[in-house]
């Protein structure tokens, strides 16, 4: 039983990272209808930038986080402006392909700037051991779970109650109508990219604190796809909790079934889920008029 609880806990830890990235996927998808295949790379760029700020400028951790958030938002806005904005009006397929191209581009660029080696991400809040009953966690793992819940809560409240969040949902629902109601639709898209860059960037920092800042960080982006799919691409909260589920399933199957399953059990799960519910567990069923 202790072993089981520890598996679940480690699953929740990695699942909260998946969840955070999945929330970022869902924010962009919900507002712009584009699945951002470069989300993992945006996350990586934010994490690397923040690592450089932390180690080379040696900012204290509590100053680093606000600076990283601002930096992430800027990165999101700049990427949207340069790569995505000019594609407005093109078919979704083209825009998605641009994000795939962007992913390969950013990944290579990051390795060329920071080099191919991994480096530890140090911070004052790390390496304390916390025992909750039979479950043993490092402090940074606990913070990752907390971060997930904070982000989910904030994103939920933002979309539900804030003026901008409502404008974003309106744009997602009907762009023309939103435009006629006085919503600046162009700003909404860049805002969505900024928010998703911040969210995924925080996830990336949390991940780098647990492991290291390494050039295969982008892969966490791909691993979070099952979470987004499970929860439904257009449901940020659903995607987030999809991440927790995928994480726990991964940890349990790795623990009880076989080695290496942690990475791909999620993909098995989504193939099965998509067979039963092609729009995810919490996604809206798309009705089509002909």
């Amino acid at each position, binding site marked *: 039983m202790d072993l089981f609880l520890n598996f679940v806990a480690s699953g929740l830890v990695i699942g909260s990272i998946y969840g955070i990235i999945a929330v970022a996927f869902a924010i962009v998808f919900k507002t712009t209808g584009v699945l951002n295949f470069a989300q993992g790379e945006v996350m990586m760029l934010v994490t690397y930038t923040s690592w450089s700020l932390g180690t080379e400028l040696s900012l204290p951790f509590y100053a680093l986080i606000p600076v990283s958030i601002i930096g992430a938002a800027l990165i999101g806005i700049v990427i949207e402006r340069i790569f995505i904005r000019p594609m407005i009006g093109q078919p979704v397929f083209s825009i998605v392909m641009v994000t795939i*191209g962007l*992913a390969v581009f950013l990944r*290579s660029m990051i390795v060329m700037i920071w080099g191919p080696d991994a480096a530890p991400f140090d911070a004052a809040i790390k390496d304390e051991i916390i025992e909750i009953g039979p479950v043993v966690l490092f402090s940074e793992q606990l913070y990752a779970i907390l971060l997930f819940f904070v982000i989910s809560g904030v994103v939920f409240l933002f979309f539900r109650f804030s003026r901008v969040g409502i404008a974003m949902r309106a744009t997602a629902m009907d762009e023309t109508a939103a435009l006629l109601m006085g919503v600046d639709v162009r700003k909404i898209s860049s805002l969505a990219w900024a928010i998703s860059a911040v969210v995924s960037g925080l996830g990336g920092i949390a991940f780098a604190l647990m492991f290291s800042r390494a050039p295969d960080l982008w892969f966490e982006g791909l691993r979070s796809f099952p979470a987004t799919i499970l929860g439904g691409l257009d449901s940020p909260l659903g995607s987030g909790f999809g991440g927790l589920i995928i994480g726990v399933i991964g940890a349990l199957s790795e623990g009880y079934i076989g080695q290496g399953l942690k990475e791909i059990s999620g*993909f098995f799960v*989504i193939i099965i889920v998509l067979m039963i519910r092609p729009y995810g567990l919490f996604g809206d069923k798309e009705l089509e008029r002909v």
Partner: protein
Amino acid sequence: MRTRHFVETYQKHVALSDSPATWSWVAIFIIALLAFPFLASTYLLAMVTSVGIMVVGAIGLNILTGSTGLISLGQAGFLASGCYTTGLLITDYGWPPELALPAAGVVSALLSLLVGIPSLRLKGLYLAITTMAFSFIVTHFLLYAESITHGPYGVRIEDLNFLGLDLADQVQLYLFVLAVAILTALAALNILRTRVGRAFNAIRDHDIAARVMGISLTRYKLFAFAISSFMVGIAGGLMAFQFRFINVDIFNVLLSIEALAVIIVGGLGSVAGAILGSFFIILLPEATREVLDFLPDSISSALSIYIYEIRGLMTGLTIIIMLRIKPQGLVGLWRDVKRYWTHWPLSK
């Protein structure tokens, strides 16, 4: 000035192309390719052999993604299954290569039906992710099912004799790949202009409308998956012939993305596009390397460590730029040039 092209006889209607100019260009191109091994270095020859293999795979992907509109991010999985089928059948089961190569196509096609069945309910992005999931599962299986696939140790093919051809020889391998590529291109051209090909296009343009017109979505989507993956599987088998040492490492996500880049750069839904795109994507890193050689030594040696990254950088930028300025790809560019010349001086 040519005003219009009239097709006058039945023969002209059913011909692959009724333009003598097209045929003579194709003839010149094929003769050039046949003469190529006697002029080029071994290095260039190996590279153009890779282009040929990529053409086979890209034509396959183009039928699925370009013509039918089903986006696949799992080409690495189909290639890997084809490559391993050929390799393992030859080494462990003693099959002759003549049978092992078609078997690669058949295995990939059967696997694609497994992915295709859930895909009947999925659209666009969800499908792309399912195919990606499939390719992860395939590579995982190849890596961990050691008793069948040799896992991390890879598969080594000792010698290859295909209908009297010695495929260990560069020139003979090249000619063999060329023949397969030409056959694939002919097959694809013929499939795409028949009822089946038009059904594919109808599904791409609007699947519900296609269904209303009596096209069975189930049958044609699965058919597109099967044909496309058969070709990709054959390409995988050819990869086994070329490398003769198979390892799961090359079948990564970047390969799937490069495959998509090929057809985007070349032109979606066109066989000529797949060919142009393959040349472009394989020769691009080479061209980059040539350019790097012109830079001062200090810069070029600093950059040469990152040759893999530069390749990624170029692939990514190519996709982005191509989609931005010419979504129809190199084929579209070629058509524009042609139109410009035929209408000159009235072209704008």
